[in-house]
């Protein structure tokens, strides 16, 4: 056997491990000093080497130990230096597709939570992770039954932090993933939601709101997370948040949530509440569904910034792209850069603009009597049901009132409100909290905005809103 030992000086860190750990004292201190200020090592007694290979295992790559053995290895090391992965990973995939609804078209009588489950499965979601919490339990239970049927994965996680971690992992493994929780659990998810923002990971989080703060009244509805969904995470990048008002809308908006999440590669939050979750209503199921799957173009950079703020291509684990996903500031290939202010700014700008540039498309409002309205009731989700009735009744009594209900809460339809503020005298915001969206509406316009808060864990009585509109006070 012939042994050749050399030390690549640029890689030597002067850690002294080779000198001290070599049983035969092959290495010694050299004369040169490393940039860290340590003495670089040299090979002093190469003939003493027994070939135990300890030194190279201790060394950070500087020792180049060549032992020529008589027998050559029986295999040739398969070296993959470029892109690899399975053959199907060399084809682009994703985009819009029309898919058949697995259920027979027609009318179904469903609870709100059940509608979320069926909608998720219909648009191709095959991964659910969750932790029991009232009032989102039925989603967890129903998923446990239904995922078995469709050959998907349902995990009951050890806590909400694990639940969101798992769906982000599953999303990068190539599946559409969803989790469901309520206020306290949603707070636990905030850290990893900001990771999802940063790593541009598509996923849907259903937040079935209940009356808080803290444990509050678990079985009672509230709209307590209206600002947390947007501003809860550190960094607070643009989010897409939807809030339906009926079980039918819950079904439709769940599908929409998945499509937006896949298109923009961002977490989408679907708000619901204890009332909507347990309300049973009829749901009309259509035969076909338009579903969007994340786009993958082989070889394209997997992260932003993109030149036109478009959504980057999304590979999955095992595609052979040497994916490097990190929550630290990174460039478009995912290489970490934690000190470069330029890269940080570009990345944040990309994450914001990816959504803001499409904001016209992200306006989805229900409007009533806005043409001649002097007072406009702006309501979100469940409260919209009460407010709509009150507005209709007030109209019958000659009041010039209008009604606006954004289905997509964030990005907030600021342009719509600004346009209205030209002709409207007053905006009224009834809410099942202590006044959260009131501030969002108020910061966009200079008109009078009135908050009608009701944080008592009850649905707002339509008659209470009507009384206010008729001038009797709140």
């Amino acid at each position, binding site marked *: 056997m012939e042994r050749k030992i050399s030390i690549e000086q640029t*890689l030597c860190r002067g850690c002294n491990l080779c000198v001290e750990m070599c049983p035969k004292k092959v290495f010694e201190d050299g004369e040169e000093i490393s940039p860290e200020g*340590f003495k670089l090592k040299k090979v002093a007694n190469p003939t003493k080497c027994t070939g135990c290979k300890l030194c190279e295992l201790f060394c*950070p790559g500087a020792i180049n130990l060549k032992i020529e053995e008589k027998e050559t290895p029986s295999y040739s090391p398969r070296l993959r230096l470029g892109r690899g992965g399975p053959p199907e990973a060399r084809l682009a995939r994703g985009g819009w597709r029309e898919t058949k609804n697995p259920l027979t078209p027609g009318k179904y009588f469903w609870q709100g939570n059940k509608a979320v489950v069926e909608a998720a499965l219909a648009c191709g979601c095959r991964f659910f992770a969750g932790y029991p919490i009232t009032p989102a339990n039925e989603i967890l239970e129903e998923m446990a039954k239904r995922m078995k049927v469709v050959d998907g994965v349902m995990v009951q996680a050890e806590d909400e932090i694990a639940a969101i971690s798992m769906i982000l992992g599953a999303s990068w493994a190539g599946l559409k*993933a969803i989790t469901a929780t309520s206020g306290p659990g949603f707070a636990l998810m905030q850290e990893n939601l900001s990771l999802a923002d940063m790593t541009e990971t598509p996923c849907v989080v259903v937040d079935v709101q209940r009356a808080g703060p803290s444990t509050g009244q678990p079985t009672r509805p509230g709209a307590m997370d209206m600002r947390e969904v947007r501003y809860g995470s550190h960094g607070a990048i643009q989010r897409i948040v939807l809030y339906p008002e009926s079980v039918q809308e819950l079904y439709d908006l769940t599908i929409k949530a998945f499509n937006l999440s896949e298109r923009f590669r961002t977490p989408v939050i679907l708000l619901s509440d204890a009332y909507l979750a347990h309300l049973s209503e009829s749901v009309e199921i259509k035969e076909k569904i338009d579903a969007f799957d994340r786009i993958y173009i082989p070889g394209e950079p997997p992260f932003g910034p993109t030149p036109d703020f478009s959504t980057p291509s999304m590979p999955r684990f095992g595609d052979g792209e040497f994916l490097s996903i990190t929550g630290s500031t990174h460039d478009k290939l995912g290489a970490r850069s934690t000190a470069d202010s330029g890269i940080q700014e570009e990345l944040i700008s990309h994450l914001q603009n990816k959504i803001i540039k499409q904001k016209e498309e992200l306006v989805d409002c229900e409007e009533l009597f806005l043409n001649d309205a002097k007072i406009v009731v702006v309501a979100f989700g469940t409260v919209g049901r009460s407010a709509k009735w009150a507005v209709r009744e007030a109209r019958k009594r000659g009041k010039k009132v209008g009604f606006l209900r954004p289905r997509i809460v964030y990005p907030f339809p600021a342009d719509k409100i600004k346009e209205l503020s030209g002709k409207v005298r007053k905006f009224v915001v009834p809410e099942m909290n202590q006044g959260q969206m009131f501030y969002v509406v108020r910061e966009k316009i200079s008109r009078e905005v009135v908050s009608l808060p009701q944080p008592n864990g009850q649905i707002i009585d339509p008659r209470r809103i009507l009384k206010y509109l008729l001038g009797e006070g709140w």
Partner: protein
Amino acid sequence: MNIHELRKLYLKQEKTTFCPGCGYEIFINCLLKAVEEMKKKLDDFNFVEGIGCSGWVASNYFKADNFHTTHGRPVAFATGVKLANPKLNVIVIGGDGDTASIGGNHLIHAARKNIPIAVFCLNNFLYGMTGGQAGPTTPINSKTSTTTEGNADIPFDLVKLVLGAGAKYVNRYPTAYPHLLVKGIKNMLSADGFRFMEIISQCPRQYGQRNQMRWASKMLLWQKEHFISKEKVRSLNDETLKDKIIFGEFQSLKEYLELLREG
């Protein structure tokens, strides 16, 4: 191929940012060697890491798919990846704070559920990246930046913890024995179900400096004094076994407790 060539082939940059003498370099070398000896490629594995020095091992240097997640959650992320695509070979690399402190809950539940992932815990006894604060595995009486007069808490025995949670394959090796480490990693990667490996590593910069072991080699000699292989344990009497930590491969809690003479 020797380690020098393997590192040139599989690492994104030849020179890492680890401190001189860091045990994580030894882990990288041993992992590359184990992968080579198994006749596999590094990118046959998918890495999930947490935060801290251990999070930099794969995410900064490995030419393979990797997911650098939040602090303490890599096991949960890996669970998601593995269950979503069971064909993937998922490896978690975490530190002791990552897997045993903030992420302790995920660790024991993944062990209980026998999720088929390999968890490597690089245990350097403290939080190295943030400046050397005491962690869940800091030995009693050792000095860290938050326990300047010596740590008063009893550290976790991670092998006992994970075996207690129901894992079927757990091993522990110190970096002072790199050839055994290679063997351990190979066995880890070829075993089934949930696997846990505690790698006793050295941190000369944060731990050694405060505990009269400024040089990495001193820490390795300390390891050689205090760690004893499972094969040698049986020949020792109770008195000499007192301060020793056992390393090797363990299949059940009963076996481990018997070796500790607590059974």
